[in-house]
């Protein structure tokens, strides 16, 4: 890595105008990525606030901190905001939008205006849902189970349902844009098996986004129709089957958890190779397991319904398929660990987030096996074991990957370096806070504490207090990156084109890149992650 002082380039995409019009009407994928970065960070803050309220209430067993009504609205708000407005768009909309054209040597995504439209749809959906949550709240849980959501809840179900329905199309349009871009706009010489694994992961994610999201869109629409016009889709008094709603809801919502984790897996593949300066172990196996996850992810949804009274025989089929879908994730984890073997591992912040990801995603993935096995699931489903399981995957996996990616490509996005020491401190704090929050919940789950309980028996209090303590450390830990990364935008030391000495087309351009990315479309000749040969400079006019 060059050691002499770097200087910021004169011309780059951030300099292409600073007025409102240049930001709100931009069709530059990099600027839209930043627009998304700001909006989902805001939504993450709101979701964390709700989480804080939930954990605060669970400090005492008798639920005397707040009314049951307020608690139900708090955990629903936490679920809705975090799932639909932070985790689904998190990496694809920010890092994906920013990096995919750069990584495949294109000037922009295939449909720049649809990309801007997808951000506006996200904002409208978020505004509507926030309006519903603020002016009365939603108390159905993010799962909207009927007949409670359609017949018995007096909260803003219709408004929130329409908000989420709209936000779904933002995810569909992002997926559509990525699929067409990756197929049609790769640089010459960039065959499928030379693509970075980040692009593979986003290709698999986009397939799920495009083919899964419409089913929840129609399901949420049916809930709204049933409340507004008294249609009878899920009304048990008229023969409607509430379990059918669960089928249609989870047909999307399980693949949705793969929308949340696959992009993080792509980020991990990029960072682990760069910081062990070594070729990825088993490139084609990782690429293919991304696609396998996308395909198998659609076959397993009914493991959420094992105790709902579905047929015993089809429960057996779904249990077997749920075990099958764990195999590709296991393959990836083994391959990342093997990449470190005989490498040259540098312990920078992105790499620490990779260690956190592999360590914690492992627990998240393996605890899924308990829930896939029918006998144990009867006892564990709808308890805090499930809450701990999916938080280990979403917070321990997806958010660690998101933060790692943010730190890894921060020099490319802003052209400046963040302070390395702060990075290490905050990742350690996040790791400790996270484990203290969610590991006790595994034990709570096996002890039988059900989910979504405003008050609980006394014997669970100690573990809940531990969990709340962990939550405060985690919340505090997340404030760190927010502050020193923002600080680095203004005061950070210029980073130069390739501060980590990484491979990949995005590192051959200047940092931050020009508005049209490449003066000359690069021709790709080397294999991906070929760290043996020196990093290449892009031909500049």
């Amino acid at each position, binding site marked *: 890595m060059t050691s002499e002082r770097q200087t910021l380039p004169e011309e780059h995409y951030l300099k292409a105008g600073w007025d409102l019009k240049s930001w709100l009407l931009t069709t530059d994928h990099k600027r839209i990525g930043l627009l998304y970065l700001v909006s989902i960070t805001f939504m993450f803050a709101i979701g964390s606030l709700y989480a804080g309220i939930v954990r605060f209430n669970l400090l005492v067993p008798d639920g005397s901190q707040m009314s049951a009504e307020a608690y139900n609205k708090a955990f629903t708000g936490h679920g809705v905001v975090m799932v639909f407005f932070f985790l689904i768009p998190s990496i694809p909309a920010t890092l994906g939008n920013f990096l995919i054209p750069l990584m495949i040597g294109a*000037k*922009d995504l295939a449909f720049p205006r649809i990309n801007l439209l997808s951000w506006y749809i996200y904002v409208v959906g978020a505004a509507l849902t926030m309006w519903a949550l603020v002016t009365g709240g939603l108390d159905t849980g993010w799962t909207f189970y009927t007949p409670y959501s359609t017949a018995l809840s007096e909260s803003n179900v219709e408004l929130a349902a329409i908000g989420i329905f709209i936000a779904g199309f933002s995810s569909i349009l992002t997926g559509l*844009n990525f699929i067409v871009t990756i197929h049609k706009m790769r640089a010459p010489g960039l065959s499928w098996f030379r693509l970075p694994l980040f692009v593979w992961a986003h290709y698999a994610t986009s397939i799920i986004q495009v083919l*899964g999201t*419409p089913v929840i869109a129609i399901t949420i629409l*049916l809930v709204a129709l049933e409340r507004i*016009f008294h*249609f009878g889709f899920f009304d048990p008094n008229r*023969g409607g*089957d509430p379990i059918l709603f669960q089928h249609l809801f989870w047909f999307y919502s399980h693949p949705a958890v793969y929308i949340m984790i696959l992009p993080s897996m792509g980020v991990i593949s990029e960072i682990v190779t760069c910081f062990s300066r070594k070729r990825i172990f088993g490139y084609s196996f990782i690429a293919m397991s991304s696609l396998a996850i996308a395909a198998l992810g659609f076959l397993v949804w009914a493991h959420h319904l094992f105790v709902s009274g579905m047929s015993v025989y089809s429960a057996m089929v779904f249990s077997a398929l749920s075990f099958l879908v764990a195999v590709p994730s296991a393959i990836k984890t083994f391959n990342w660990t093997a990449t470190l073997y005989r490498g040259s591992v540098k312990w920078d912040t992105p790499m620490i987030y990779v260690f956190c990801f592999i360590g914690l995603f492992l627990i998240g993935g393996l605890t899924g096996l308990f829930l896939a096995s029918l006998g144990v699931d009867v006892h564990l489903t709808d308890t805090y074991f499930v809450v701990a399981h999916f938080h280990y995957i979403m917070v321990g996996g997806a958010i660690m990957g998101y933060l790692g990616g943010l730190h890894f490509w921060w020099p490319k996005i802003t052209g400046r370096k963040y302070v390395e020491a702060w990075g290490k401190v905050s990742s350690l704090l996040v790791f400790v806070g996270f484990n203290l929050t969610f590991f006790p919940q595994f034990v709570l789950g096996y002890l039988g504490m059900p989910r979504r309980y405003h008050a609980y028996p006394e014997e669970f209090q100690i573990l809940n207090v531990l969990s709340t303590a962990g939550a405060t450390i985690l919340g505090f830990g997340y404030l760190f990156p927010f502050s020193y990364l923002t600080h680095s935008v203004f005061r950070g030391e210029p980073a130069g084109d390739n501060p980590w000495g990484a491979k990949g087309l995005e590192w051959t351009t200047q940092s931050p890149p020009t508005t049209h990315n490449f003066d000359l479309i690069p021709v790709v000749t080397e294999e991906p992650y070929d760290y043996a040969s020196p990093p290449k400079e892009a031909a500049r006019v």
Partner: protein
Amino acid sequence: MSELAAHGGAEHHPALQHHFTSLEQQRAASSLGMWVFIAQEVLFFGGLFATYTVYRTQYPDAFSAGSHHLSWKIGFFNTLVLIGSSLTMAMGVYSAATGKKNRVVGFILATILLGSVFLGVKYFEYGDKIRPCFGDGSHAGCLVPGERFDASALHLAGPAAGHAQIFFSLYFGMTGLHALHMIIGIPILLLIAYWSWRGRYSPEYHTPVELVGLYWHFVDIVWIFLFPLLYLIGSH
């Protein structure tokens, strides 16, 4: 369509956007984008068709009673109208590909006309199911699911009346969503007719006409499945 791209080069076409290297790449990308959008629509309607399939296996009698109540003649006529509009749409795309500008406008206006006929027939069909539901007094013949649903019109009592409400929820849901897709399609068709009247399209570049054609044919396919599933199960 977009400002003249910065590049020089003789064969550069005004409609080529800056981030594509050739018109052919832009056309292929747009066409793939439309097909992926249609794949998403298949799943969007798919959720409804899956609900229909499940409830039809659960309540065959109520479904055939409900379907028997729908007049298949209207459905039959509407199907022919929609297939006709598919033909005129395809001829429109054909004329755009062969550069006959006036024919394109003519065929697209014909498509809009046939689409409006379809929606008009739909309006009246809905009318005689919804009108009795308003006003006080007996809601005989009201088929909108809810308290005022009149199941005696279908000679059904007890839980079967509830199952008939599910049939009509599906009927209004599926045909309503289909009609909504046509209501969105018609203004876009008008826009395309206006632009082709302004001479924007040529044999080299008529992608928007193709894309609207794909969308319109998809809407026709949805109706091709709706007609037998909703109108024809009760008639034997």
